[in-house]
């Protein structure tokens, strides 16, 4: 069952992205937050959306932004790819070499100037998706199937 996030929830979602990643609230202007279970979806705010939401049984709406568990909020790769370019902190820039290591080894070790927790992984300035930084190690949180596809033979130059 999909429903609009309440005003309070809307504010909490904006605060999360602002606090963790420095993404200004204005980046989400023109979008609605819709909830189903523990997932928050980002949807284009267009006249007619409320009527469709009440008139049809929808499976999903827009793209997933967040998975909300009791104490842990996890941003999605899809959401970060669409909104993560506004981020000013907890982002890690990867080049071909470091991305190659991450793809091959499954983790990247080093002091990456990140707060522990979920981070935005970028490759040459482009948002790849969600990573998890913990105890000096970065691990990909990109959906496994997508990661497997781009991993190929461990050589990102192979196209």
């Amino acid at each position: 069952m999909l429903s609009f996030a309440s005003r309070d929830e809307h504010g909490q979602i904006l605060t999360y992205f602002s606090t963790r990643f420095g993404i200004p609230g204005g980046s989400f202007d023109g979008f609605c937050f819709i909830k189903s279970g523990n997932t928050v979806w980002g949807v284009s705010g267009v006249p007619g959306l409320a009527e469709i939401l009440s008139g049809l049984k929808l499976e999903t709406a827009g793209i997933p932004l967040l998975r909300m568990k009791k104490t842990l909020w996890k941003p999605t790769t899809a959401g970060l790819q669409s909104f993560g370019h506004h981020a000013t902190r907890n982002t890690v820039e990867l080049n071909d070499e470091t991305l190659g290591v991450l793809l091959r080894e499954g983790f990247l070790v080093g002091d990456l100037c990140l707060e522990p927790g979920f981070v935005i992984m970028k490759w040459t300035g482009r948002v790849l998706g969600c990573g998890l930084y913990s105890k000096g190690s970065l691990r990909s949180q990109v959906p496994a199937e997508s990661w497997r596809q781009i991993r190929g033979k461990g050589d990102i130059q192979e196209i």
Partner: protein
Amino acid sequence: MPSSELPTHPTPSTESVRTFERYREIIPDYEGFLEASRQPLPAHIRVNTLKIGVEEARELMAERGYELEPVKGIEEAFRLHQPKRPGSTLEFFLGYYHIQGLTSMFPAKILDAQPGEIVLDLCAAPGGKATHLAQMMKNRGLVVANDTTIDRIAILRSHIDRLGTTSLLVSRYDGRIFPTRILFDRVLLDPPCSGEGTYRFGRTSPLSTDPGVVRRLAGLQQRLLRRALDLLRPGGTLVYSTCTYAPEENEEVIHPFVTNGEVEVLSIDIPFPHSPGLTSWGEKIFHTDLAKALRIYPNQVDSWGFFIAKLRKPR
């Protein structure tokens, strides 16, 4: 086996030749059609302008060693000569492009949905056309992408996430009984079909080798079109498309709705070679306006074969 690695001159199966033989009189340059069907299918991509500009994408991919050839007539379309596995690249993962047959891009182009509109794709999975519609509307409208099977919807969902189509809503109704509580500005109906247009020799014979399959599909298509028209607001437009040549699944499905005045057939202007829709087939006579529909064969556009009709519901 990737299509790009198909043998260039496979032997056509007797069954396949027999299936297409009935189209000898309606397909222009029939021998050329058979020859085109022996060639490997070229790979095409659609740049996802929701995430990257066409020129920026072209430059980025050229830098990375892609061999791209622009398609005259569709700015966001490119023929892809390299890489061989376009579904395994970083640019694909980033949602910068979608792998889509060139002619599969035509229905969304022809429907021409505008920002702010509410659009229904009644049989949407795997989602190439629905995400194209969202792209054309710049994510500033709503596209309800409906399909029935969970597996196909899962593929559609993965494309939505990758392409960042925030304007796409997914539903899972049987299209024949899709609720009529909402009326749509435009509807795309690309129903299940016998898929003759996706056939290239060397592949499995098309479904239409069994005439019973065509009959069953035609019945389903007619019921889907009935409901699609019920879901269209007065004055709204509907594009009906299939990737098959069988007139039973194309002109014959639309003909009764044109004859009884429920829809009018609109002319279609596309900068690609094509043939007109049929106004007769054997002893059957179809409404003359069905000549405004398009038939596209692989010897005209090197891609999937398609049938496309654009319809308008009177006010």
